């Protein structure tokens, strides 16, 4: 998988209340959730982002509530993937289960500015940044998780068994 896009930077401990505030959880409709994506972290994000853009976070991205509405909102907004230093565990499994590509990179976030254009090659396990003569590595994904992605998420994985 090769994903290219413009970066939106967020800090450490971006919680699921910031990604999709609970006041919008009276629906699970992806299009409605997408309209409020990242609302309490950056209210301008959803009006300014373009499909294919990439969210880059710090430590513990997606902490807090188990709401799958968070990765659903991000995916439905058109974000191609999330790269963070580390992910909170429920967000991590939710993303794989429902098919939002996410990647761990320890050093990308600190080396780039918002608006940078990056290209991520999941097979090579690397990220390149436009105008930067340096490659960033992404943590390898366990084979089981790769299978989940290849199958199109957990429910399709189960159905295939």
């Amino acid at each position: 998988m090769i994903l290219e896009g413009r970066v939106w930077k967020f800090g450490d401990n971006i919680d699921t209340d910031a990604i999709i505030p609970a006041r919008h959880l009276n629906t699970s409709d992806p299009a409605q959730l997408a309209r409020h994506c990242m609302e309490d972290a950056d209210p301008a994000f959803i009006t300014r982002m373009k499909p294919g853009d990439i969210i880059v976070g710090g430590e513990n991205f997606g902490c807090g509530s188990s709401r799958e509405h968070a990765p659903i909102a991000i995916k439905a907004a058109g974000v191609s993937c999330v790269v963070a230093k580390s992910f909170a565990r429920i967000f991590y499994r939710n993303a794989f289960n429902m098919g939002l590509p996410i990647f761990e990179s320890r050093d990308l976030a600190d080396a780039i500015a918002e608006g940078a254009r990056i290209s991520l090659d999941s097979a090579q396990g690397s990220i390149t940044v436009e105008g930067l003569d340096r490659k960033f590595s992404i943590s390898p994904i366990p084979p089981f998780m790769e299978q989940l992605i290849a199958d199109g998420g957990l429910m399709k994985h189960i159905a295939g068994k």
Partner: protein
Amino acid sequence: MGYTITEKILMAHTDLKEIAPGRLINARVDIALGNDITAPIAIREFRAAGGKKVFDRDRVALVLDHFTPNKDIDSAQQCKTVREFAFEHGVTHFYEGGQVGVEHALLPEKGIVLPGDLVIGADSHTCTYGALGAFATGVGSTDLAAAMLTGELWFKVPPSIKFVIYGKLQKWVSGKDLILHIIGRIGVDGALYSAMEFTGETIRRLPMADRLSMANMAIEAGAKNGIFPPDEITGEYVKPRAKRPYTFYTSDPDAVYAQTIEIDASQLELQVAFPHLPSNVRGISQAGGVKIDQSLIGSCTNGRIEDLRVAAGILKGRKAAPHVRLIVVPATPLIYRQALREGLLEIFMDAGAVISPPSCGACLGGHLGILAEGEKSVATTNRNFVGRMGHPKSEVYLAGPAVAAASAVLGRIASPEEL
């Protein structure tokens, strides 16, 4: 090499002969839980996968506790989706209306979750049941769909962090203060992907209500689960409630821990987590003076009868400050009724409190107690993220029921010793 209690419970739910942290396993699930926010997505996924029947109607719990009593048409639709699914599948543990309580108070109270169980819930505070010596962890809606369909789910075996807590707790200091202190010490990702195992002489004496409060907030340190070795206190709690067999697991003496953290709790004072992270913790002596607009006593962390008794003991014969909205949320109908019988509700009403029906609404800024711009609330809940209880520019201060009650009276964050 020995195993931790977490490893033993996980292994007992597989056909594996050995297990180790980091290994991905498929394990059988004893109870799968969803609520009115998370279950609708799970039901959609369940149906999309061609699901015709839940794996075991006695092992699915559906609790309409978040945006209920229905707060608007969309919320009502979500509840309707879950209700129809529950009836269609004959789900035994379906709760709404006058039967509903805050799920993580309700399930232990009814003996639905038991020691040795493997419990998954599409709600992050599912880790609460670790207080009973169960492996319980929050998952997403797709996970819930898979578990409802197959009775199994994938897990990564977590490494365990052992907390050895000793010393006699000071007056007013509770399990809530202990867990806030721990989160303050290790941080909101201090136990990321790990099991938090709570041991030591303080823990052996700690009542079940306090254990439930502590296990509840393991997720606020990033943990996969929090767990207490079951003992006599566990037995006393579980025995009158259980309707099926259960197992006490304990860690082997030579079990392997990623880390051991010792805590002297004897000098611990009341704790308050300042905005906007549960790890932003201060002792009450460093926390005073913040003027508040609301005090919320309730939630899956601190809405039990023991919490209400502490609050009522402080509020008896006193009134909430005129500028403070005091909201008390008994977590289940049984707790509500018990508080009524003991005269606690009258004490709260005399103090000027609103008594809310059991609901999660206020804690997550969804329903029944939302903050306006610039407002501050002390709350016995578990999260104080930006916008958690309402406007993105409102603030939440987490504390136990003693601080919440005293703060309501004084109109600022305060210790009951100041009254």
